[in-house]
């Protein structure tokens, strides 16, 4: 299993979320290629369905990245986003699926360090837990 590449999906808002990723890249920070950025206008657009379907389609972990809650481009979008994530987490926990596979993060466009940190955390989770439905990660 050590050959297996983890699969991480990151729903990033087109405002601060994606900007923080771009700033990270432009400041020369590297992160694991496993992450699949899916741009959404705002994390308030994210529906629990998107997260669950991503897991269904083979994601080992999924994160949602939005603006800082007090400085959201769409005022309350990242607060909404967090609520959706929390609902999915509780649903997963209830099903006996590790809820740490799904996380919400917030960043501002100036936080270059944050995106690689998030990716590394979620890649870690993906490696540790492996795919849903097959035993073991790549330990």
């Amino acid at each position, binding site marked *: 299993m050590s050959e297996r*590449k983890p*699969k991480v*999906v990151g729903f990033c808002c087109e*405002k*601060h979320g*994606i900007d923080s*990723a*771009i700033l*990270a*890249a*432009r400041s*020369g*920070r*590297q*992160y694991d*290629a*496993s992450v*699949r*950025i*899916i741009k*959404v*206008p*705002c994390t*308030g*657009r*994210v*529906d629990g*369905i*998107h997260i669950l*379907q*991503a897991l269904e*389609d*083979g*994601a080992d972990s999924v994160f949602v990245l939005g*603006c800082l809650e007090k*400085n*959201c*481009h*769409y*005022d*309350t*979008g990242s607060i*909404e*986003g967090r609520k*959706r994530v929390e609902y999915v987490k509780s649903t997963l926990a209830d099903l006996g699926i590790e809820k740490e596979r799904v996380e919400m993060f917030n960043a*501002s*466009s*100036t936080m270059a360090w944050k995106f*690689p940190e998030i990716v590394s955390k979620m890649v870690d989770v993906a490696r540790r837990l492996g795919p849903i439905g097959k035993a073991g990660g790549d330990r």
Partner: protein
Amino acid sequence: MKARIQVLACKACTEMPQLLDMDDLMNVASERELVVSSMLVDRVCDPKIIKRVVAEASERDVDRVLVLACQKKDVNPGLLAAYKRAGVNEFMVEYINLRDEVILPHISDKERAQAKAETKAVAGLERLLMLQPLEKAEEVMRTKNVVILGGGVAGRKAAEVAAAEGAHTIIIEKSGSSHKTPGVIMPNSTLLGAKGYGGNFVLSIKAGEKVEELECAAVVVATGGGWAELKGPLAKAFKSAVPLYRLHEQMQTGAVPKGPVVIVDSPDPAGKTLAVQDFAWDDTLELAIDLKKQQPLEEVYVVFQEMRAFGLSELAYKDAAELGVRFIRYDRAAGPKIDPKEPTKLTVKDLAQAEVLTIPIGTLAFAAIPANKDNIGIATALRIPMSPEGGVRRGSIQRWPVSTPRPGVFVCGSAMFPKSKDMAEAEGEAAGLMAGKFVMKGVIEYGGVVAEVAQEKCSACLTCVRTCPYDAPYIGSAGKVEIRIQACQGCGMCAGICPSKAIELRGSTDDQIAQETRTMLGGDF
């Protein structure tokens, strides 16, 4: 008609051809069905190249385009404009940011980067096939009126600047007094309510005994504020504590503060007796820098739960830190304390070091700004959100600090207090300028990426109406939700929350998101 796609890749940035096998990438893309043109160009921003690619697009009757380059806002807008002229809908041009999302972050991982880039291109092509051409529309603003609530320093400045932009300004002033400013001043008047949206508001205003309707295109909230009485335990223990602005004033007159200066965010860290609207972030930094410059050997402590220094303020923060201003972050649960028996020392648990610090106090100032009681009425009338602390909530930094989350409504003054006159004027100027520019556009541009309701699915549950920060959804005459597209900002919160899945956000539908996710997950990298 079947889709006809042009794939356009740019190799301008040096890393791209170094890391990626561009020919392979182009092959992957051009082999896809419906791709009728694929071009790998040296620099997609070059006007000559733009001319060439768009000419080819025209010739091949292309109706949608995949641009493999960097982010849309970095690409020469001339490209999109040229496509538009060539009859390609602007929402049918999809930009894939290979540079920032694949190349730069994966420089050392050539193989995976290639696979990722290819998958992204495929996902982009699939997405293109799911896109619908969208149109933007314009609504003419009925007036050039900018209504300014409050005729204080900030409000007057806003009026002056907005007028200079060409707007008609009307100051609504609750007191009877009036100052000399351009435009109209309505004394003894207050705002009761507002209908419409940014560009075409109809305000209801109580002027004296009469209630009048007033059309306007933009509103500037410039109500005043004031310092709260200092009554928290810290202020009680340290009798000569002052609000920050007082310290500021003292320094303007050349006074030198006594001993080490401690600036605390709130006079009552427990937050029980005072509704705090905001903190004087920038002034604290400014003042701390001044103090340090004046007396480099005297300590200056900034004891805040958090220090917000956005944008250029970050430089001020850096300057302050370099000058030796000590920033101490604390947790609300373990706020600073002063023992009344020994009121020359402040103890606080530093959140970063987790140790309790004892700080000698010479001068104590508080940087909290209490909530203005007028805010509630104004926020309710304009349907703009408030902060939990009772302030008028500002738009995000990206949306500019003098904006509110509601387009066409700007803010200075109230939330600006206790800035110095200069700062109040500066904010008034900014708000006035933004309002003036907004009004002088003369039209409200709307449409494009907005929410769309499938009414047959709508349960009229009001969830979107309650959730939307822009008041865009409303229950229409059919008893189902409709979207005021002039107000819609395209965030998609309604689409994300609708329990009946009756709302979709154009360009970001569930199907599009799901398909893109699936394709990206299908890639082997």
